[in-house]
């Protein structure tokens, strides 16, 4: 086990820079999830740590050891791949033990570790089968078994659950969380799936365009996104955005847009000075919108386009002045499509973003 440090790591492919000045310290035993859309550089970062991709500049350390230029086998990392990457001509047992055999670990020790992994991951029934004769979930467990028997300093997961169906994905997610807690190995996990990111991570690293957008505990990232990208990326359905401006009205700060005009609650005021008439974007989470009958200042009038009943929750798609907002409300009798509708905004839960996308609240509220 060991900590992991990236120091000013950069990666170029030809003339394109896919990772810019990446700096991150992962503590010993920590579970860090790298999340972002496709092409954000998250897999490249993982592959650079594994030694599968050259590092253009910067340093990578595992524990006290500088590994920037070491080949993969000398880095003491184990990786689980999206397509499992099992050797098709070997049985599950051979797949799991191959890395140990190549490292000349004594036979008795190999047998002991395979046994341990098999018990931990419930692999016994298919240890002597080849990958072709296994389901996706079983193969993924074999791939995990192969990683843990190595007892590496760091686990790397590269979208390990993307090829599984929804039900199995949930199940394997719990297994990964349980496994990591049991063995306590430092883990970097790459995904584009928010549920995985939110539920597995001790800390979340949100990436976009090869740059870190935000690092923090999942709930902090959710509650206090550093910028409009993070706000829109984390959360399902995504945060609603409304363009407008902030105006000073005596002692109050007022948000003004075509559809709205309301004073800001004291705790959601931008912590640094805002020039009057500055263009800002208001961000409202779908769950911070509620159906209302009484017209108040922070009430939006719109037209219901679509009501998606998910069970306990219903997503109302509402058209407001040419824009589409989504409200997540508890299921119940809801208006018919096309009906006029009023939504009340919970003004204690607002987000404001400057025209460059950065949050105007960050630093003032981290709850």
């Amino acid at each position, binding site marked *: 086990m060991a900590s992991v440090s990236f120091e000013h790591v950069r990666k170029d492919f030809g003339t394109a820079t896919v990772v810019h000045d990446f700096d991150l310290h992962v503590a010993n035993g920590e579970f860090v999830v790298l999340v972002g859309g496709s092409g954000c550089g998250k897999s490249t970062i993982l*592959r650079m740590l594994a030694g599968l991709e050259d590092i253009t500049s910067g340093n990578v350390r595992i524990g006290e050891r500088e590994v920037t230029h070491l080949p993969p086998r000398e880095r003491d990392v184990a990786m689980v791949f999206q*397509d499992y990457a099992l050797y*098709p001509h070997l049985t599950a047992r051979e797949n799991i033990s191959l*890395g140990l055999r190549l490292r000349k670990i004594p036979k008795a020790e190999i047998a002991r570790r395979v046994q341990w992994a098999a018990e931990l991951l419930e692999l016994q029934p298919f240890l002597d089968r080849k990958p072709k*004769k296994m389901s996706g979930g079983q193969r993924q467990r074999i791939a995990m078994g192969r990683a843990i028997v190595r007892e590496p300093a760091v686990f790397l997961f590269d979208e390990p659950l993307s090829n599984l169906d929804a039900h199995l994905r949930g199940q394997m997610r719990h297994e990964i969380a349980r496994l990591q807690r049991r063995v306590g190995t430092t883990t970097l996990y790459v995904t584009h799936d928010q549920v995985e990111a939110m539920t597995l991570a001790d800390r979340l690293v949100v990436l976009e365009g090869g740059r870190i957008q935000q690092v923090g505990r999942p709930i902090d990232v959710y509650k206090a996104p550093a910028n409009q990208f993070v706000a829109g990326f984390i959360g399902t359905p995504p945060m609603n955005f409304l363009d407008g401006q902030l105006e000073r009205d005596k002692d109050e700060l007022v948000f003004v847009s075509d559809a709205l005009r309301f004073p800001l609650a004291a705790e959601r005021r931008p912590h640094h000075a805002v020039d009057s008439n500055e263009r800002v974007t208001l961000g409202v989470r779908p769950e911070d919108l509620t159906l209302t009958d009484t017209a108040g200042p922070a009430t939006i009038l719109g037209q219901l386009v679509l009501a998606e009943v998910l069970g306990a929750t219903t997503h109302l798609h509402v058209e407001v002045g040419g824009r589409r907002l989504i409200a997540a409300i508890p299921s119940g009798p809801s208006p018919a499509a096309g009906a006029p509708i009023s939504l009340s905004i919970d003004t204690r839960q607002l987000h404001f973003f400057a025209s460059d996308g950065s949050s105007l609240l960050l630093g003032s509220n981290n709850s």
Partner: protein
Amino acid sequence: MRRAVFYVVLALAAVAFLYPFLWMAATTFKSPAEVGGLSLIPDQPTLDNYRLMWARAPFGRALLNSLFVATTITFSVLVFGSAAAYALARLNFPGRGILNAVTIAVLLVPAQLTLIPTYTLIVQLGWVDSYAGLIAPFVFNATAILILRQFFMQVPRSLMDSARLDGMGELRILFTVFWPLAKAPLAMVGIFTFMGAWNEVLWPLLVVRDEQLMTLPQLLTVFSLGGGAGPRQLATKLAAAMVLVVPVVAAYIFLQRFFIESMASTGIKG
């Protein structure tokens, strides 16, 4: 009805292909009086033709020579060819594109064109009348490299990554990960290489004069054309031809099964 016509046509085609071969096999067991006939069953079967053939020229030795030469060539084409294919398909190094282009360009050069220069080279090296002279020009094969490269490019990258993390070097990845996956293309390249080497006549005729080093098709040619079989001894010549053909047909029947099996089992995704 259409099916019946289909089978009749197939049967006729089969007869057309098989009859000459069966006739040849039958003739080798016939006595001199019968040799010209169309019958497939000898009236008085005899092994005289084989005895004669065996006595007049070192066919046993030629059979061993051919086996040794063809096997060595096949083995090196597979080993060197897959190593080159692996490098061209999966390793990043400067000049890879040029090497790829050169490999393809080699295919465009007819073998006849390189015959004389290669011969001169072998003479300079002093490899005339040696196994080295028979084998060396064929140990690399551009077609084999291209076929294997094409297959190797389809092996998932994660499998290589995984092997590297498991601690394998490139050669080990090639022989313990790629080879088991590439059974079908390796079998195909192996069969064609072996057949090509086994049937090669022109090159051995150029570089080997010592009867003890002659390959089977070469000795057969020399034997038939040089009058070793004696005038009008068609059956003896055909007996020699049988020695050439039977191992190949046997190998083909055996390998075909393996070939189809390995084709069916290369599904990497499952």
